[in-house]
């Protein structure tokens, strides 16, 4: 018998075939890699977009107003009890408006500009000050610095998000001449060359119907609107401040792309807010009100406190109902249940419940709790009960896995020294399984915390301005607040919604971190 060893190289066809197969192998690997990158990339884009939006909402602009607390205005005769003062929004608001009018006397000219100036502050923004004065009546008559958040559109403008504009440094203006019609002629050699160039560059990428862009010129606290712009001269309509400020100055020009009618803020408002900033009266401060205020129709005043408290109350009810029921049911199924049809039926039910869409639980809650049992709508009590029904199958499944992991030797040992089955389970097995049970329960609660749809159906979407004090009060929760804010039309709600999402994600992160910690600390292999 002869061994025939093939020593010759594979045929050319076989080599080609092998090469193709290897190439296919490499491609297949890259498909997998691409899939991973697409998934991780989607996550990164999601987190980054929401994160950057939230970052811009983490601070906001507040304006300081020096006001004298005139007793005749804020505590008139017959209405000077602390309770009256704290409710005297109109009086405090009047002080702020008078302060603004004193700063910008040109707004007195007509009703439109007066209204535009009063838009700087919403009425309710003075409420914290009113409460402060009500609690410290000795302040009445003194001069205090009242701080109030800037109107949301102007806030966005100062953050560079509301209005598309280009800033150009103009050349030196040598002379300012007043004209009969109230406008001024600014001139200087080549002073507006850069502006003309900027306008020409901008007109290329603009749609035809966008109208003429506005050009504002700012020097110090003064701002004017330019027209008839040439390289060496331009006509200016003064919006605020004094025309002399422009003489011998190198003013900053702003080319505002969208026309005034298409914006939420007018040229005059831009001029005023720039002047306020120039005066050093605008501060960009952390927006703690997001955590300390409740919902509002004004974005600059809105916060999530009521929703956070509502979420905590809802979670409390969910935990009180779902955790005992889930854990005890798991103990029964794992340790006591006889192998029969009924047990099997219960197990099938649990597995199916864990996969039922959450909105169906909302329908159940609406029909059972609200319609049949007559419980109040929009209450954390009902929300918590609905979420409990959703959560307890998850708790059961996790607890069973934890109980299963406890080795039979523990049970045998306890039984051998004479413990009853109940004693074995509750004195030995459950304590050993407790970390696993707890992590499962926390994960179930984390899922319930982010749940929105079932709560919409039981009316938790209503506008709630007050912090709920008991589980039976009207309330909303964080995810539902996110949903309602995302429905609001104003542009300023977008970053706010993102900030609220980050707060919700922070809660979830803490819960999941707790799970990881518990697992690290208590995990034991048998």
């Amino acid at each position, binding site marked *: 018998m002869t061994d025939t060893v093939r020593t010759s190289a594979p045929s050319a066809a076989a080599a080609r075939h092998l090469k193709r*197969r290897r190439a*296919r*192998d490499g*491609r*297949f*690997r890259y*498909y*997998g890699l*691409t*899939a*991973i990158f*697409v*998934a*991780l990339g*989607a*996550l990164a884009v*999601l987190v980054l977009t929401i994160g950057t939006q939230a970052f811009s909402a983490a601070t906001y602009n507040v304006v300081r107003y020096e006001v004298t607390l005139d007793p005749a205005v804020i505590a008139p005769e017959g209405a000077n009890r602390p309770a009256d003062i704290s409710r005297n929004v109109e009086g405090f608001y009047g002080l702020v408006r008078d302060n603004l009018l004193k700063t910008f006397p040109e707004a007195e000219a007509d009703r439109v500009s007066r209204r535009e100036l009063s838009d700087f502050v919403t009425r309710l923004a003075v409420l914290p000050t009113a409460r402060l004065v009500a609690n410290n009546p000795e302040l009445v008559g003194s001069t205090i610095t009242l701080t109030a958040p800037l109107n949301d559109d102007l806030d966005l403008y100062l953050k560079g998000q509301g209005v598309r504009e280009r800033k150009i440094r103009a050349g030196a203006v040598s002379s300012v001449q007043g004209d009969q019609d109230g406008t001024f002629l600014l001139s200087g050699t080549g002073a507006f060359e850069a502006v003309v160039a900027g306008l020409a560059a901008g007109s290329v990428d603009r749609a035809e119907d966008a109208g003429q862009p506005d050009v504002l010129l700012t020097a110090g606290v003064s701002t004017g609107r330019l027209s008839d712009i040439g390289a060496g001269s331009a006509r200016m309509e003064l919006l605020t401040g004094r025309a002399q400020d422009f003489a011998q100055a190198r003013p900053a020009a702003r080319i505002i792309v969208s026309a005034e009618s298409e914006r939420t803020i007018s040229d005059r408002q831009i001029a005023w807010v720039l002047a306020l900033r120039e005066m050093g009266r605008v501060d960009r401060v952390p927006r703690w009100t997001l955590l300390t205020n409740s919902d509002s129709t004004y974005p600059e005043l809105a916060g999530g406190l009521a929703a956070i408290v509502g979420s905590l109350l809802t979670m409390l009810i969910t935990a009180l109902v779902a955790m*005992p029921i889930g854990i*005890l*049911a798991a103990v*029964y199924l794992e340790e*006591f*249940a006889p192998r029969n049809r009924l047990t099997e*039926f*219960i197990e099938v*039910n649990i597995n199916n*419940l864990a*996969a*039922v*869409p959450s*909105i*169906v639980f*909302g329908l*159940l809650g*609406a*029909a*059972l709790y609200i*319609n*049949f*049992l*007559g419980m109040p709508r929009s209450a954390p009590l009902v929300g918590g009960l609905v979420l409990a029904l959703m959560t*307890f199958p998850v708790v*059961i499944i996790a607890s069973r896995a934890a109980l299963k992991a406890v080795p039979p030797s523990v049970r045998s040992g306890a039984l051998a020294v004479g413990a*009853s*089955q*109940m004693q074995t389970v509750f004195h030995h097995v459950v304590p050993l399984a407790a970390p696993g049970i707890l992590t499962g329960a926390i994960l179930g609660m984390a899922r319930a915390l*982010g749940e*929105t*749809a079932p709560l*919409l*159906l039981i009316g938790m979407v209503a506008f709630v301005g007050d912090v709920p004090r008991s589980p039976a009060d009207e309330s909303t929760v964080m*995810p539902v607040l*996110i*949903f309602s804010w*995302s429905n609001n039309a104003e542009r300023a709600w977008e970053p706010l*919604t*993102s900030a609220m999402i980050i707060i*919700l*994600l922070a809660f*979830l992160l803490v819960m999941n971190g707790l799970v990881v910690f518990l697992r690290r600390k208590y995990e034991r292999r048998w």
Partner: protein
Amino acid sequence: MLQQLGQLPMGWLLIALVAVFGSAAFFMGRVRAERLLAGATSRMHSRPNYHGYYVAMWASVPVVIVAIAYAIFAEDLTRSQLTRELPSSFARLSPAELQSYLESVRMAAGTAASAGADRVFQAITNRYLELRGLVNTGTLALLGLLAAGGIFFAQRRLQPDFRARAFVENGMQLVLFLCAGVAIATTAGIVLSLLYESLLFFQKVSAWDFLTGTRWNAQTEAEFGALPLFFGTFMIALIAMLVAAPIGLFSAIFLSEYASPRARAWIKPILEILAGIPTVVYGFFALLVVAPGIRTAAIWFNETAIRFGLASEPILAAQPTSALAAGLVMGIMVIPFVSSLSDDVINAVPQTLRDAAYALGATKSETVKQVVVPAALPGIIAALLLAVSRAIGETMIVVMAAGKSARISMDPTSDLTTITVQIVSLMTGETGFDDPKTLSAFALGLVLFIVTLAFNVVALRVVKKYREKYD
């Protein structure tokens, strides 16, 4: 006096009473058992604590039952008596009007601030409080009586040879069983409430018209043809699966076959973050980023097509909210459901199969495609079915990004509506439960429940029936 009793915070009081009676009974039983132990000649059967628990059971179980009964019936009882006593002028109110009137009475009674209201209203509120006080007093008296009776009865049974532990443990086992039974009760609750309200709906609208009608106009209560909703749900779930199935599957294959253990330990938890993000966040993302992006792309596509003379008018609808936006984002959300379940089943394929394939000269990808995936196929199909069921039942993403117009359109950039979107929009209005609008939401819920249940059951069956056993 009775009026003040009518304002008792009964919820807290009942909880407190259960705790007080329970713990008092426990200590009484324990003390008695210890005394028995001191004087007993023979050994006791159970430890004193179990005697305590036994007495506590007898004291608290009747109290809990009465408390639950109070929570369910007290308000109805008070109202029915109050209705009987109302002046005859109230007889012309419809039941709904009467209910809302009584509701306002209850609210006024709760705050005790009926000042300024008319005298009839005030009198009725006072009478309501009196009746309520009567019910409250009766309940409290009954509670005290039952608890005392329970304690008395149980105390008398305590003997050295009394098998208290057996009783207590049987009672606890019953409690455990009842907790497990909540699962059945919940399912029954879902099925019954959905069926009940749906049947009311199908009395007004025929089931055939509902399932096959092509015009949906529930807000005006005119047309209830749900086919466009089924179509929208199907379309968006299809888009989602077109995204999630390849990405999820290839991720799973890469993670289990190609990735190093270190990379796997990092990538897998990060992928699972996708499953932990609340869906309202995905919805916001879809609304903020994806939908406008798709709209811009669609407009660009239309303009390009027209510029090159391929079309005379816009081909795509390019609406601000679109099926494509919702579907894409939903697909991202569903990826971890596909990938982690598939990963599990691929990992469960024994190494010997792979080794055999390598031994025959197969490349890695050939092994995966021709050996591993076929072996894991039942599990993979189950994972896909579960993901589809998840996509069909998903609500927030479609509510925020899919739109509300019920239409049948193959254009993915037009806005479509789904079953879940319609349930939300029908149930968030201020309408009563006898309204066909509200009832139609339950009919839709029933369809949703049945469809998702079918997907889950089929998925479990597939796994059970076709799973290869290798050991």
